[in-house]
């Protein structure tokens, strides 16, 4: 990404002294959306597993997995310390891979998913939010990481050698 982080959205950065945080500014929107998805997916999978699990076990296990990932992503982005952000990065990557793989399978082998999941058909039942959200989230994490390296390079440097 060639652009400088601060030129594009100066209106959001009114406090230049503050360290970039994945849960502040635009990040609040992400946390809210992930929180909502976590709530929806958790509720739905509790219902599916307790009420009619036999109807489509694979779909419902996937729903439960999605719920866990959304919870991890919400907490990780909201906390915003280095470990949390890494955890959130893993969750978002799994989410992206999941929605791509499940989306592709649901088109190729429709019988594999008799009941819809959040990820089938690339999340078309949810306005493709499940596909777009991990992309936006990973972009945001990358952007805040870059920005915090710019603000405090001495803190960001060990992270590189550590991983």
């Amino acid at each position, binding site marked *: 990404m060639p652009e400088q982080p601060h030129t594009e959205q100066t*209106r*959001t*950065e*009114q*406090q230049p002294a503050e360290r970039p945080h994945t849960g*502040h*500014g*635009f*990040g*609040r*929107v992400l*946390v*809210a*959306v992930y*929180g*909502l998805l976590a*709530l*929806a997916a958790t*509720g*739905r999978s509790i*219902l599916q597993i307790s*009420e*009619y699990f036999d109807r489509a076990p694979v779909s419902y296990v996937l729903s439960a997995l999605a719920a866990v990932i959304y919870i991890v992503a919400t907490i990780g982005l909201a906390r915003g310390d280095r470990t949390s952000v890494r955890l959130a990065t893993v969750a978002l990557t799994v989410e992206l891979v999941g929605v791509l793989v499940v989306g592709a399978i649901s088109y190729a082998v429709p019988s594999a998913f008799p009941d819809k999941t959040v990820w089938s058909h690339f999340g078309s039942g949810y306005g493709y939010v499940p596909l777009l959200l991990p992309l936006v989230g990973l972009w945001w994490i990358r952007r805040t990481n870059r920005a915090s390296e710019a603000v405090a390079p001495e803190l960001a440097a060990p992270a590189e050698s550590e991983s």
Partner: protein
Amino acid sequence: MLQPLTVVVLVATGLLAILAAHHLLRRRLVDDPIVLTGAAIEVALLVQLVVGLTNASAIADGAERATFIAYLFTVLVVIPATVLIAIKEKTQWAMAVVLGGAVVVAILVARLQQVWSLHA
């Protein structure tokens, strides 16, 4: 279910959405009108919860009834959560969150009405 109540909630969420959009454009943060409109919606949703729970037995299908009850409770969380997030945020993203929350409540209430009209 209670048609008038649903209409009240939808109008109130529309009002909250307009207020939030206005504040977003004017770069204002959370103020009394936002909080009071949110509180009014929350009261209406609590009435909806009571009405919904007392009438839930009209939905014969067990899974649909469980969905209905789950929606009744879930919709209560949205406004307090979004307003709290908005209070903590001091940029205009605060109003974006409130705007999104208002839309989500409207969608959930419409879904409730849909589940009710299809299965009760």
